[in-house]
C-alpha cells in the first residue's frame, strides 16, 4: 500500500503493508499543504518480522507490527524535520482560539505527557514535537504527528497503559481537536523542575531556549538569531515546575484564559 504524507511542508512517501497503512492513515490528520518529496520509507513483511528501509541506507529488521509502526513513525519524524523548509524548534505546542503556547524542551522531559494533559484539559493540538515557523514572518505551521506516550506517561494521565510498546494516540483519543486557522505565539514556557509554580522568566531565557532547541538553525543562522528574538519580544516567557501533568496543564490553560 502506497501512502503520501505531507507534514510541515515536506512530503514523505510510504510503501507499507495494508494493515500498517490503515493505521498510519488513522494517526495523521488530513494534510492540506503540498511540498516537495523529501524521503521514501518502506516496510515489508519478512520471515522474521518486518523490514524497514529508507534514506541513507536505513535498513532495520523488527520482530512485530507494533514495533514496525513505532519505528516507522520515528523515521517519518526524522525525515520531515531534516527536510522541512521551516524553522523547526524541539517543542510541544498547544493552543486555544488562535493563541499558542510553546514548550521548548529536549526528549525525555515530559513534553508529550504535558501536551496530552493540555489536550485533555481543553486546549487544541499543534504538536508534541516541534514548533515550526515560516522563516520570513514567524507564522506557525502545525506539525500534528500522533502522540506517542510511554506506559509511565499513560499512568500519570490515567490512560490505559499498553503492556509493551508506546501508546499511539490521536487528538480524538484524548477528546481534543487539532488547532486550525492562524496561530499567534503568546507564551514560551520552559519546564523547570526547580520551580514550584508558574513564574515569569527573563525573555533572554526564552531566546536561548528557542535557539538551543532548534533542529535546523544552521540553515539560516543569522535569520534564526533574529527570529528567536522576534518571537520572545512578542511573547511572554515563563518557568513552569511541572507538578502533576494535570496541575501543570491547568496552569497553561489559565495562561490562555487570561
Amino acid at each position, binding site marked *: 500500500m502506497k501512502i503520501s504524507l505531507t507534514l510541515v511542508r515536506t512530503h514523505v512517501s510510504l510503501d507499507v503493508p495494508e494493515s500498517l497503512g490503515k493505521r498510519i492513515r488513522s494517526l495523521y490528520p488530513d494534510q492540506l499543504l503540498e511540498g516537495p518529496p523529501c524521503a521514501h520509507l518502506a516496510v515489508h513483511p519478512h520471515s522474521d518480522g518486518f523490514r524497514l528501509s529508507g534514506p541513507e541506507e536505513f535498513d532495520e529488521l523488527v520482530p512485530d507490527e507494533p514495533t514496525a509502526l513505532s519505528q516507522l513513525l520515528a523515521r517519518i519524524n526524522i525525515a520531515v524535520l531534516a527536510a522541512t523548509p521551516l524553522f523547526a524548534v524541539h517543542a510541544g505546542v498547544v493552543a486555544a482560539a488562535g493563541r499558542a503556547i510553546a514548550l521548548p524542551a529536549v526528549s525525555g522531559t515530559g513534553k508529550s505527557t504535558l501536551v496530552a494533559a493540555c489536550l485533555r484539559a481543553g486546549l487544541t493540538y499543534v504538536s508534541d514535537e516541534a514548533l515550526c515557523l515560516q522563516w520570513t514572518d514567524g507564522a506557525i505551521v502545525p506539525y500534528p504527528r500522533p502522540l506517542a506516550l510511554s506506559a509511565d506517561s499513560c499512568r500519570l494521565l490515567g490512560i490505559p497503559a499498553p503492556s509493551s510498546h508506546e501508546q499511539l494516540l490521536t487528538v480524538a483519543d484524548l477528546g481534543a481537536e487539532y488547532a486550525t486557522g492562524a496561530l499567534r505565539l503568546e507564551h514560551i514556557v520552559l519546564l523547570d523542575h526547580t520551580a514550584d509554580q508558574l513564574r515569569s522568566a*527573563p525573555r*533572554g531565557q526564552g*531566546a536561548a531556549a528557542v*535557539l538551543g532547541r532548534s533542529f535546523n538553525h544552521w540553515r539560516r*543562522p543569522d535569520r534564526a*538569531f533574529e527570529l528567536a*528574538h522576534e518571537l*520572545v519580544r512578542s511573547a511572554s516567557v515563563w518557568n513552569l515546575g511541572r507538578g502533576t501533568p494535570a496541575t501543570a496543564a491547568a496552569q497553561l490553560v489559565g495562561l490562555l484564559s487570561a
Partner: protein
Amino acid sequence: MHAKTLGPPRSTVRTLELDGNLSLYDSATGQAAVLNGTASDVWRLLDGAHDFDTVVAILAEAYSIAADRIREDVEQAVTTLTEFLIPPQQ
C-alpha cells in the same frame, strides 16, 4: 590578561537587545550567546579601550559595590565573551 585591553568585538558580531540585556551572534563562527545583565554590561565595555581591572572598577562604581565582589563575575563573563572579540595584539 589583566594588563591588556579587551576587545574590540569582531566585525562579524551582531547584537540584539532584550529587556536591556544583550544577545550576540557571530556570523563568521555561528556562535550565539544570550547574556545576563552583568555580562551585557561587561560586553558594552569591551571596546578595545579598557583592560580587565578598569572594567571591574567601572562596574563596581556603577553597581556601588566593592570591586572584589564582582571580580569573579566579570572574569567569567570575559571568558565567555572572548570568542566574540578580536584577539589582543601580542
